[in-house]
């Protein structure tokens, strides 16, 4: 069934006289990997915060996971997963404690948490590291653990904010394989990245410039319509037109 799990119309956010997000509209289908690209300061983070129910739009309407972004923010938060490079795990808690904590935050029962913990550790191959402090893990493992934890409550949509920054090339790719796995299970993935090769892994990408969506399509179609060899080139053509200083 083709179903839009994210449905946004004329979303606008103003900070005083500054319009960070300027009337953007888009839909994301269930199970889609949607790349949300844009230069620094183009308004990506602001838009993403609204979608995650962390901030209210100045204008516009929309739904995420079937809930209204203006009036049902708490329900949105319960039904999405969120992972960012900046904050994801408590470094001074062990792997198991982190899983427990986030399971608890999302209101899972002790029994479910226990089951999930076992499964998750098996899947990540981290059984022997379960009592290590999360802060002591290699970056790549942290990233994968953080992703699994963001999925602990089986959300229908997961928001990933630059999940792979600074990670080594192999781990970066293994991480994307986890994303693919999730998408195959029907989870909708909404991801931002600065790596343009990762943009190619998305089903569709949008490029934000100066608060507006300047282009939105599948990577293949974008490449052919901009007559570019890769997404890097596409991005530079589109984002290069920005009026705001980068």
């Amino acid at each position, binding site marked *: 069934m083709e179903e839009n799990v994210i449905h946004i119309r004329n979303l606008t956010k103003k900070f005083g006289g500054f319009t960070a997000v300027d009337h953007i509209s888009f839909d994301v289908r269930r199970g889609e990997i949607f790349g949300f690209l*844009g*230069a*620094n*300061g183009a308004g990506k983070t602001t838009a993403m915060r609204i979608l995650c129910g962390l901030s209210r739009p100045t204008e516009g309407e929309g739904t995420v996971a079937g809930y209204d972004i203006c009036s049902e923010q708490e329900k949105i938060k319960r039904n999405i997963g969120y992972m960012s490079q900046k904050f994801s795990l408590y470094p001074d808690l062990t792997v198991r404690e982190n899983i427990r904590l986030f399971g608890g935050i999302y209101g899972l029962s002790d029994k479910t948490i226990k089951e999930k913990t076992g499964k998750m550790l098996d899947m990540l191959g981290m059984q022997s590291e379960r009592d290590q402090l999360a802060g002591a893990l*290699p*970056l*790549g493992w942290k990233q994968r653990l953080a992703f699994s934890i963001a999925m602990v409550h089986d959300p229908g949509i997961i928001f990933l904010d*630059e999940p792979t*920054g*600074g*990670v*080594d*090339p*192999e*781990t970066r*790719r293994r991480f*994307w*394989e986890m994303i*693919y796995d999730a998408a*195959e299970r029907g989870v909708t993935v909404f991801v931002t990245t*600065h*790596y*343009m*090769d990762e943009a*190619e*892994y998305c089903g569709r990408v949008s490029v934000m410039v100066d608060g507006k969506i300047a282009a939105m399509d599948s*990577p*293949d179609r974008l490449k052919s319509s901009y007559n570019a060899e*890769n*997404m*890097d080139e596409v*991005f*530079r053509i589109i*984002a*290069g037109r*920005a009026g*705001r*200083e*980068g």
Partner: protein
Amino acid sequence: MTAAIDIENISKSYGKVRALDGISLKVDAGEIFGLIGPDGAGKTTLFRIMTTLMLPDSGSGSVCGLDIVKDYARIRRLTGYMPGRFSLYQDLSVKENLDYFATLFGTTVKENYGTIKEIYSQIEPFADRRAGKLSGGMKQKLALCCALVHKPSVLFLDEPTTGVDAVSRKDFWTMLARIKASGVTIFVSTPYMDEAARCDRLALIREGSIIGTGTPREIVSAFPFGLLSVKGSRMYRLLKELRGLPGVISCFSFGDSHHVTYDPSVTGKERLLASLSEAGFTDCTARDIGPCIEDCFMWLSGAAAGGM
């Protein structure tokens, strides 16, 4: 010609964690030398040791011919350093920051205006704005100006492009090329493998060890296996299928295609395509390609870890 940077067998540990493990590097005067590796590989520690901010546990080194331990005071005069984080005074204006750092190094902005003119002219219209209120790209330019204002002969840039978008990153490397043209040696680190091509020479670093060094061309030509770029419609399934085929050493997605590292003595393009169509992947295309730095990094880190 003496090397601008010459370090020998440098090691450094923090408690039990070994951050650097016997690092040796030689950087010629006037080149852009890239230190490439993921976060946590020890890049920042190496920078701090070379900029005399930290003492190595063992090993020796020199910058501009001066010892990094004994002659630290003289090295500090001759080098410019831009740390990984934006490290300027957010509550001071652009001009105040620049003036202050010029004074610290016993010079004035006026005296060395020629050195920074090209970059500074881009932020000069905002000279009275507080540094904290600048956009990311402008902050980066200001930090670069502050590191250059005393005309250093060696410039250390620790991850200058992290968290910066693709367009600004390209601009930044263009600036670096111009700085290099004025005779400054540049030692730069980055986690972005695609920036490697902009460097004259590279060192690949992983878990505190150098796993490869040379010009980008040398590193690429040392790749010992065959490499195929494979495209198809069901990319993720294709990836899993490819990994199971005989002769395939590794397979990873690279943008819109998969890079398949294979052993030429066991398999080849035609053979792989045949096995794929047998498995139902009939619409696949494949072509032999040369490796990029990222392929090499993955191969070298696998080799360092004893995997391949």
